């Protein structure tokens, strides 16, 4: 347990759970303190000082009191309100929720700094909210990049086993991505070359190249990104099967 006291940080609300009569436990991904859980007292009352600031997707500046068992949110000021624009479109809402759940699951420990995860999430939600890119692509970019930040970077070009320069036509989630004919384990799949090009573009943030992709390659890339994520998580994401893929 850390030192008892008051601290300030910025964070994105990942999840909320009802607690008692009018409180909620808020799970946040913060810049300095990583993933934390804190109680927001009275937040469900219509007259609460927090209003909608502690709803999922909100990016807030927080003042938190370190309690004995659970931390307590004392103040929250909005830095960005992505939630409204995200939930105004059902595809964005489901993709965004899968991003929040991914961020929660890939930051395995509470209170362990995860600056890169935090920055990735803020950037991802901003892109999702502004609507310039298809929600499904924003989600897939977030998935492959989050996995890379978590230390599970997939290779979409060179062989993930022997590093022989690609492109290769085999892909295996357990082996770490693209694999050459010599290294390919049984059960490897053979995605379209364009699908692996798309996944590379999503990993590097090349939106121009990603935007030029065809629907069938996007579908295949989504399938591979999801399979790759599920492979690295103990149990599947609840939100992923509910994502509305365009």
């Amino acid at each position, binding site marked *: 347990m850390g030192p008892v006291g008051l601290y300030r940080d910025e964070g994105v609300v990942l999840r909320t759970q009802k607690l008692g009569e009018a409180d909620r436990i808020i799970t946040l991904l913060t810049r300095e303190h990583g993933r934390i859980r804190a109680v927001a007292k009275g937040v469900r009352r219509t007259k609460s000082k927090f*209003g909608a600031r502690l*709803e999922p997707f909100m990016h807030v500046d927080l003042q938190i009191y370190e309690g004995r068992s659970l931390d307590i949110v004392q103040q929250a000021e909005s830095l960005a309100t992505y939630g409204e624009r995200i939930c105004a479109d059902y595809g964005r809402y489901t993709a965004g929720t899968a991003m929040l759940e991914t961020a929660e699951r890939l930051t395995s420990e509470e209170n362990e700094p995860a600056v890169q995860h935090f920055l990735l999430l803020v950037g991802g939600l901003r892109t999702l909210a502004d609507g310039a890119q298809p929600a499904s692509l924003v989600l897939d970019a977030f998935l492959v990049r989050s996995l890379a930040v978590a230390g599970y970077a997939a290779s979409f070009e060179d062989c993930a086993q022997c590093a022989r320069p690609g492109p290769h036509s085999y892909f295996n989630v357990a082996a770490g991505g693209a694999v050459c004919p010599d290294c390919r384990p049984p059960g490897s799949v053979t995605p379209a070359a364009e699908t692996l090009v798309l996944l590379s573009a999503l990993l590097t943030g090349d939106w121009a190249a990603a935007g030029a992709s065809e629907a069938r390659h996007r579908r295949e890339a989504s399938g591979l990104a999801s399979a790759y994520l599920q492979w690295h998580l103990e149990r599947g994401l609840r939100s992923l099967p*509910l994502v509305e893929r365009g």
Partner: protein
Amino acid sequence: MYEGVVQDLIDELGRLPGVGPKGAQRIAFHLLAADPTDVRRLVLALTEVKEKVRFCKICGNVAEDELCRICRDPRRDVAVICVVEESKDVVAIEKTREYRGRYHVLGGAISPIEGIGPDDLRVKELMTRLADGEITELILATDPNLEGEATATYLARLVKPMGLRVTRLASGLPVGGDLEYADEVTLGRAFEGRRLLDV
């Protein structure tokens, strides 16, 4: 920890929504000290509610018969349906005495992070009700929070081809609150949902 049955009671009470461990302990000791006839009445109410209460075949509201009190009432406007998340929302809206149509209780809101999608709610039943062509207006009265908004967005898009009048409750500022304390989202929604004042 208390002995056997007392601890069992505390554990059971602690599983109720809104009851924490301290509250469960308080209720348990209140019941221990209470008059046995009072406790028997409580037990009877609990048993009866599970035996007698059902869900209305039309709207999904709690009912003592096949249909709830509202769906049985011939004075209610059958052309308007107000969609809510829970039965307790029906009670809240009925208290306003503003609304004369019928309801549709979804049984929650779409919450992918909890694994709850449209198929887990009474959405299909709603579509069946709308299909008969008698309905002209659909009021979306899901909670004024993120999940409620997303659920309303989903439903509005789903029923769009049917050409109904679809409205959303003006989720405005809470009555009694000060404007300066309203957060940006709530204030924004209040502006969006503003109505023309007839003076």
